[in-house]
């Protein structure tokens, strides 16, 4: 048992628990907070995998911007709680069975392809974090420059689209 292994096991437990918390919490605000915890855990996973830029982007974009937007809408709509009651009585057990089947399939296929002994190929590759970051930046702004610019247009389209969608028509009540 070394430190990394202990850290991984604890983080995995926190990630799984917060995902379950997202599923079972009745209050939507609590669900959002569980999801933020999950995102933070995944950010630490990224650090363990030697991807500091992605880890920081995860914290700022996901845990910061996106979840603040979620909390804002939850409180704007006042939809912290919805009334209980299932319309379809067999929906929940059926969903649990289907999700379990999906999990077994995914784990089986991944492990069948990779074997249980597959390890991270070159562990020393990104020990030099600065060089890895430079590689990432060079790749992003040379080979992937066009997709990068297209995503900026996509963000602009999303922004304009949201403004158009939520704008009230003239004379429309409320």
């Amino acid at each position, binding site marked *: 048992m070394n430190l*990394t*292994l202990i850290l991984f096991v604890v983080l995995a437990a926190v*990630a*799984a628990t917060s*995902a379950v918390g*997202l*599923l079972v919490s009745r209050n*939507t605000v609590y*669900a*959002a907070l569980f*999801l933020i915890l*999950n995102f933070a855990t*995944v950010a630490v*996973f990224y650090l363990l*995998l030697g*991807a500091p*830029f*992605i880890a920081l*982007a*995860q914290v700022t974009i*996901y845990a910061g911007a*996106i979840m603040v*937007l*979620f909390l804002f*809408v*939850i409180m*704007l*709509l006042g*939809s912290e709680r*919805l009334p209980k009651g*299932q319309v379809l009585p067999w929906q929940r057990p059926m969903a*649990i069975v*289907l999700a*379990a089947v*999906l*999990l077994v399939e*995914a784990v089986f296929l991944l*492990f069948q392809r*990779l074997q*249980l002994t*597959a*390890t*991270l*190929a*070159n*562990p020393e*590759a*990104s020990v030099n974090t600065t060089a*890895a970051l430079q590689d*990432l930046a060079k*790749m*992003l702004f040379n080979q992937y420059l066009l*997709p990068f610019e297209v*995503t900026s247009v*996509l*963000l602009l389209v*999303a922004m304009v689209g949201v403004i158009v*969608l*939520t704008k009230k028509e003239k004379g429309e009540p*409320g």
Partner: protein
Amino acid sequence: MSQTIPLSWYLAISALMFAMGTLGVLIRRNPLIIFMSIELMLNAANLAFVAFARSFGVPTGQIFVFFVMTVSAAEVAVGLALIIIIFRNKHSIDVDLMNSLKG
């Protein structure tokens, strides 16, 4: 530092998070929680991307994660706007009430 942790463990965590997200989409009736479950599934996919990028020693996987994050930011903005419009029309956001194509 992390050579002691096999790639398959990361993939197992990723698969577990993805299955949880699917379960959330299937069993919850609050569209906001369904939406958050979709974000959870995107995160699971991102984790697998970064684990594979580390395993193969190329940064391409990290670049794709960056693009996935950008697209999901746009997706969240549009999706929440749609939820707000549905609330404005129906005065509730229960997914069981969203059963008509025309407002």
